[in-house]
Each structure stands twice: as structure tokens, then as C-alpha cells.
């Protein structure tokens, strides 16, 4: 079981980690402590490894800053389930090995603070109010996530997964 942190539509990367708290500005060892510092000031203090983020449409929009998902990775986030993801954020998460999965109904089923279970293999997010269906990941992304990220994948295989 993990805690669900629920967000709305168009959560931008400035909300995840504001530019003024980039690792570049505050150091590699501190930037993740500013995760959601404006939007959800309690987040960085109370989030636990394995917790799940749930969001609406266009999750992670805005800048290309990888330190936004990297901050979530540092907190050990178990995965992000949203109606849709912004494209750079989606790539960054796959590259870092953070499961990013689309679900049409998760955001309406889950309430902030719920205990949830992310069952990627089973294609569902279990919630106190029922089961949210997950959209299957493309094989390309699945292979990279299974390796723990694109760097690990490339180290192991020397090239990208097949695109055919």
C-alpha cells in the first residue's frame, strides 16, 4: 500500500520544483527538498518511498527540466498515474525509470491521501473506491522502464530497443 498524492490538470514543472530551487541553484543534495514547495508545502516532509502521484491532463507540462522528475525519483516515488502527460516530462520519467502510466479514470476515483496499490503487470491501480484501469505502455517504453531507465538499458544493450 502506498499513499496517493492527487493533483489536477496542467501540473507544471515549476510547481514540481521551481526554477529558483534547481540543483544548479541550491546544489544536487538539496533540490528535491523543494518538491512542490509552493503548491504542497507538506509534500517533501511527509512523502514516503513507493507513494503514487495521481493527476489529470497534461501532467508535468512546462520546462524540460529533468530535475523535476529527478526530485520525485529521489523521494522514491513508485509511479505516476495521470489522464495524460506532457511529452518532455513523459520522456524524462521513462529515461529515469519512473513508471508513467495513463489512466482515464484514476484521477476521479482516487482522493488525496488514499491508500493505493499500483499493479503495473495487472494493468490496474487499486483504490479504496474501486479499480482504475491503466493504459498499457508502449513496448519501447516498457523495455526501458524494465531496465531501470535509458542509461541502464543502453549500458546493457548498447543501443535503443527495436522500434519495428
Amino acid at each position: 500500500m502506498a499513499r496517493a498524492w492527487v493533483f489536477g490538470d496542467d501540473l507544471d514543472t515549476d510547481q514540481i520544483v521551481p526554477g529558483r530551487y534547481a540543483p544548479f541553484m541550491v546544489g544536487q543534495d538539496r533540490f528535491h527538498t523543494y518538491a512542490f514547495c509552493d503548491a504542497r508545502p507538506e509534500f517533501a516532509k511527509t512523502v514516503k518511498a513507493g507513494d503514487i502521484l495521481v493527476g489529470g491532463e497534461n501532467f508535468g507540462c512546462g520546462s524540460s527540466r529533468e530535475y523535476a522528475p529527478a526530485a520525485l525519483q529521489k523521494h522514491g516515488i513508485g509511479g505516476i498515474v495521470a489522464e495524460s502527460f506532457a511529452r518532455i516530462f513523459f520522456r524524462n520519467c521513462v529515461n529515469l525509470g519512473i513508471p508513467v502510466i495513463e489512466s482515464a479514470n484514476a484521477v476521479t476515483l482516487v482522493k488525496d491521501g488514499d491508500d493505493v496499490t499500483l499493479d503495473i503487470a495487472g494493468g490496474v491501480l487499486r483504490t479504496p473506491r474501486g479499480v482504475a484501469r491503466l493504459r498499457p505502455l508502449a513496448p519501447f517504453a516498457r523495455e526501458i522502464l524494465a531496465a531501470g531507465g535509458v542509461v541502464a538499458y543502453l549500458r546493457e544493450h548498447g543501443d535503443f530497443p527495436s522500434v519495428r
Partner: protein
Amino acid sequence: MAGPSALPGGPTLAELILSRVSGRDARAGDLVIAPVSRVMVHDSVIDAVMAGLKDLGKAKVWDTARVCVFVDHAAPAPTPVVADSHRVLREWVREQGIATFYDAGEGVCHQIMVEEGYCEPGTVIVGSDSHSNSYGAVGAFGAGMGATDIAVALGLGRTWLRVPESIKVTFTGASRRGVTMKDAIMRVVREIGTDGARYACVEFHGAGDLAQGDRITLAGMTTEMGAKAGIVVGTPEAPAWLRPAADASYAREVRVDLSTLEPQIAIPPRVDQVSDVSEAVGIPVDVVFLGSCTNGRVVDMRQAAELLRGRRIHPRVRLEVVPSSRRQFEDAMADGTLGALSAAGAVIGTSGCGPCLGRTGGVLAGEEVCFSTANRNYRGRMGSPDASIYLGSPYVAAVAALTGVIDDPRPYLEAGDAALDALVAKRREQRGDRGAASARSGDRARELIAAMPIRLAPQVAGIEVED
């Protein structure tokens, strides 16, 4: 992430380019491995990029001649931590033997990439900044990516891309005086929304003959609609083969009639919360920022100077002007534009990203209201999360600096000197002491935000939609 695949018809620009570089018939929805013609890296990601390359086991980038490195996002260094990071970056550039390096003060990466000719039309370029879509100004497929993607591209010279479906945006007519391509693209963002072009390529028709700077404004702002790329059709830089098929299929089509377009502004905190400027007349501002890769060129500074030359800005307003590159800076010095802006009371900042992303230059205090010519107005973007940022054109910025309020620039541009001064005096009187931290200014902004539907109805003046 999978979208509608293989719409019927011939190739779009995105399909043409990705087919050519990947050596296969690439249609929307396909995944391709694409060789890149350049990789753009900027200062704020260098630590993560270096770590990624090291983890990949790559001591050297794949081709030192195809890597462009910039110090622009927080430049010159505002803190010792940033200064250390810049030092690390300079050492890395030297060790790698990368010749194309622009240090602090040379300008915004995107402006230099385009104006110095690093963007080869018809090729794929990946950049570490989200506004790398700007390279579509000259017909390149430019895509912004995160640090690990950039490290992989630096190591392999290749990246993976899902071939995007395309949205066709067509401009018709000639815009009226006081209305710019910034207004045009904000009108498009108003229609498409911040995620309406997610994973897509926005293809601009009827814009190939525009000045290069206007095309950068268009292509760069496609990022604010979630687009993977934004490419202008028929630019002077593009080769003849780079033309979409007449029967290409588009996920959506949007037409903007420039001849009826009004000046536009984006209301905080959303880039797609756009209205005609007439809806926001009288909102007091404390700070005006003229700059960024979107609107920091000499033409933008000249537009502001048309109204500011020989006058002083409102005494309660700060105006910060940040040229987008040294070339733009020097052109604006040479023709007297910067002198006129300085004499009007502007602070002239170092060429670069400036305060656009709240790291350096004039960051905003809580409750302050800023009018910016840049591209984002998210909460906390330019400093305090309690500040508000309105977006718009250099003309509206100049009026805001003069009068202390947002207003339609056209009457000012049409007025003779005496009438212009009378207009300014009238607005200043109406503004009074309202401004920074004033309850009224905050309330007015909140009222306006509350009154704005998030998605505006189509078929409003100046636009028609074909879905």
C-alpha cells in the same frame, strides 16, 4: 502516448523530415531512431548531462563539431553555486574540444542557434531547453528534451522520436499597426490550449515570408501548447524538398485572419488564458520585462522605443530590457534604440534569458504584477509565487511601462506627440497609487481571472476553426 496513426495522404513536414533522417517511410504514430544534426546544451543542465554521459560510459561526445553549448539561463552567475557550475561547464567544453561555445552575455541559446545558422533546415536538432522548438523558424525539427535524453544524444548522435501528427495553422491577411506575430501566436495558443498540441507538430502556413525573428516567436511558442516541434513552411532558408504534401492530413486545422486580430494578452497563471487586450485595460503593473527568446530582438526593442523615445516611464514602474543576443544588443545600440530605452528609464540587462525564469535579473516580489514579453506566466515563474505575470507584445509592454497600466497600444501609436502625452497622463491619473502589493491591483487581477473561461469559444474575432 500512442495517437492516431498514419492518417491518409502525403507527408506533413514532420513526416518528411523524420522519414529523410531515419531512412524509412515514417508516418504519424511510428517510432523512429533519428540521427541528430546538432545537440544544444545549456548551463542549467550541465551537471546532469555530464553524469548521464559518464553513466553511459562515454568519455567523449559523438561529434564535437555538432555540439553547441551556451551559458544563458543564469548568466552571469548570480550565486557561488551557479558560478561553480559554470566553471565545471567551461572545463568540460575545453576537455571535450567543443568549439561552439557561447559564454555568459552572448545571448539566449535559441536566438543564437537560429541567427548564427546552426539550425540546418530539414534536420533533427535536440536541445536541453523546452523552447528548442524555436529551430522550426528556419525549417528544422527542433525538440526540447531533458538532461538524460541530451546525454544519450551527445553519446550516440541519435535520439528516439514518435513521429507526431501535425496541426496546421494558417495565417491570412496583413496585421494592423500595433498588432504583432506575438499577438497572432497567443491567439493560436488561446484556441489550441496548453495541451492541445501535445506530442504533435504545429505546422505554420502563410508565415514563410515573415522576418526570421517573427518566425522564432511562432515556433518557440508552440512549446506552450505541448508541441514536440513547431515548423514554419516555406522559409527562405529551407530547401525545395521541404514542403508538405498538398494532400497531407492534419489532426486539426486553425486559421487566423491577421487583418481582424486585436492585441492579445495572457492572464496569469496560464499561457492559454488569453483575451483581447481590451478586456484587461487598466490593470496596474509594477514591472515590465522586455526580452526572452520570444521577444528580445532589436525589432521588439524598436517597437517599444516607438512609444518610449523622448519620454520617461511611469515613476512607479521598473522596466527591464534584455536583448536576446549580443548581435541584437549591438544592433539596438547602433541605431540608438537602446539609448532611447535607457533614457526612458529602462534597465538594460545582460543578453541572455534574464528574469524570464526567475533566476537572475529583476525577480518579482510577492503581490507584484509584471507585464512580460516572454512566454510563460506560471505561478512562481519569475520569482515570488505570489506575483502575477501578464504576457503580451512589446507594444503593450511599452504602454504598460509608460502609463503603469495595461492598455491597447493602438491609440498611442496613432496619436501625435501631444495627444500621446495626454493619453499617458490620463491613464497615469486613473492608475494613481495602485500597483505593488495594492489590494486593488490584486483584486482586479483575481476578478479577471475568475471571469475568464479556461477554454474560450471559437469563432471569436480574428479566428476561425476547422477541426
